[in-house]
C-alpha cells in the first residue's frame, strides 16, 4: 500500500482523480477529501495529496469554510452561555459546544466565567456530521497544555492551508523570522483563525500583515518579506532603541 501511496503523495489532484487502488490486504486510513469508490480511492476536493505519519491519506484543500475534525486545535468565539455548555463559533456550519467543566481544575463550584464575544483556544474532542462538535480546553490527559481563554489581542482569518503550515514543525519561516526580532504571542487554530497579541498595537499589525501575505511565498521570500516589513516599522525601531539603551546601560554599569 505504501508503495502506491508514495507515488501520489505531494501531487495536485482535482475531484474525480483516482489516488490508488485498494490493496488486497491491510488497512488504509483516509481523511478529508478522499472517498472509496469500489476498488479505488478517489479525491473529492482539489488540493495536494498528503500522508500523515500514521499512514492516513488526505487531500489538503485550500478552503475558507472549516469542517470540524477530531483533535484539531481551533480558535473559537463564545456566542452563547448556558448552565452546562458554552456555544462556540469555530467557523464551521454549526456552532460547537464547550462544556463549562472542560477546563483544567474546573468543578461545579469553581468554573471559568466566559462571556459571549470572548475567545477560546481549544481542542475538538468529538466531531460527527450529525451532531454538534464537542470542544475541550484540556488535552486527553486532563491538563490545560496551552488551551485557554484568550484575553485581549486580535484575530486574523487565513486559509486552512496556511493555518496548518503555521502549525507545522519546524516552525514556518515567517514565524521564526518574526520571532527573532519581535515579541508577540500567537495561537493558530486549524479553523483558519490566528489570534495575536503583543505589547504594542504596531507589532500586532506587523505580525498580522506578515502572516497574511506569507501564504504563497517560499521560505527565503518569507524572510525577505519580514525584513522589509521590519525596516519600515516603528515597532521594530522602538525595540532597536530599547536594545541600544540596554546595551549602553550595560556598558555604563561596567
Amino acid at each position, binding site marked *: 500500500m505504501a508503495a*502506491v501511496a508514495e*507515488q*501520489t503523495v505531494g*501531487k*495536485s*489532484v*482535482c*475531484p*474525480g*482523480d*483516482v*489516488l*490508488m*487502488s485498494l490493496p488486497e490486504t491491510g488497512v488504509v486510513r483516509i481523511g478529508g*477529501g478522499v*472517498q472509496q*469508490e*469500489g*476498488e*479505488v480511492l*478517489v479525491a*473529492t*476536493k*482539489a*488540493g*495536494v*495529496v498528503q500522508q500523515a505519519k500514521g499512514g492516513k491519506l488526505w487531500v489538503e*484543500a*485550500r*478552503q*475558507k*469554510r472549516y*469542517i470540524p475534525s477530531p483533535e484539531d486545535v481551533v480558535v473559537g468565539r463564545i456566542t452563547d452561555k448556558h448552565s452546562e455548555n458554552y456555544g462556540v463559533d469555530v467557523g464551521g*456550519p*454549526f456552532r460547537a459546544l464547550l462544556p463549562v467543566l472542560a477546563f483544567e481544575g474546573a468543578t461545579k463550584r469553581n468554573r471559568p466565567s466566559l462571556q459571549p464575544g470572548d475567545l477560546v483556544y481549544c481542542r475538538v474532542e468529538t466531531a460527527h*456530521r*450529525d451532531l454538534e462538535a464537542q470542544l475541550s480546553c484540556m488535552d486527553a490527559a486532563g491538563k490545560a497544555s496551552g488551551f485557554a481563554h484568550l484575553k485581549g489581542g486580535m484575530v486574523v482569518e487565513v486559509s486552512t492551508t496556511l493555518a496548518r503550515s503555521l502549525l507545522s514543525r519546524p516552525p514556518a519561516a515567517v514565524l521564526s523570522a518574526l520571532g527573532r526580532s519581535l515579541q508577540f504571542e500567537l495561537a493558530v487554530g486549524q479553523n483558519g483563525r490566528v489570534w495575536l497579541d503583543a505589547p504594542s498595537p504596531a507589532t500586532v499589525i506587523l505580525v498580522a500583515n506578515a502572516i497574511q501575505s506569507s501564504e504563497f511565498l517560499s521560505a527565503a521570500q518569507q524572510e525577505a518579506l519580514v525584513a522589509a516589513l521590519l525596516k519600515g516599522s516603528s515597532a521594530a525601531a522602538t525595540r532597536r532603541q530599547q536594545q541600544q539603551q540596554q546595551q549602553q546601560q550595560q556598558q555604563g554599569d561596567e
Partner: protein
Amino acid sequence: MERADGRRPGEIRIVRCERGLLSRADGSAQWTQGGTSCLASVAGPTQAPTSAKEDAERATLEVVFKPRAGLVGSTEKQYEALIRRSCEAVILAALHPRTLIQVVVQVVSDDGGVLACALNAACAALVDAAVPLRTLCAAVSMAQEAGPEGQLLLDPSAAEAAAAAAVGTFAYLPLLHSVSEEVSAAGDSISGGDLQLLTSLTRGRLTSDQLLDMVEAGRQGADRLAAFMQQAARQV
C-alpha cells in the same frame, strides 16, 4: 468550412477560468468562453436559515441565476433548476447533512451558450469552495445549422445560435482520471470508459439522428473542456 469568427465547426472559443475572485464568498470562479462570461460564488456548507430548506440526510443545494440585465423570468428559473439538478449529481451531499450550499451565478456578458458557461462556472466555484465532489462536470452548447447541408457547430456565438435550426446544452461527467499510471486500468473499469451524459436541454427542431449526433459531438468538445477544467482545478 470556416465559421464567421474563423473557427472550425468543432472548435471551442477561448476558455478562461479564474478562481477565488470574491473575498467574502467561500468559493468563487469566473468562467469565460469567448464573449460569454459568468461569475459564480458559493456560500456553504452553512446552517440552513429555515427548517424548510433543511434535510436531515443531506445538504440542500440552492441556485440563484442572475441575468446580466432585466428581471428574472421563467427561463432563468428553468436554468436555476437545471444547474441545481446537475450540481446535485456531482456534490457528495450526504457528507454535510442539515446544511445549505448556496450557488449564485451572475451573467457578466452573454454571447451565446450562457447556460453551459454558467454550469462550468458553478462547477469551478464548487471546486474553489472545496465542497466534496464525486467528479467534475463539463458543459457545452451546440447548434444545428438550418437546411439540409447544415453543420453541427460547437460552442455557438449568439449570432450563430439565433440563425440555427436548433440549439442544445449538454453537461457531461468526465472519466475518473488516474494520477499514477499503475492504477489507470482499475480507474477505467469503473467509469465505463466514456464521458457520461448528465444533462441535456434542447430548443428547436431536430431529428432523433441529429440529436444523437449533437450529443456525440458535444461529448468530444466536453472531453477537451473537462481536461482544461481538471488542469485548472489542480493548480493550487
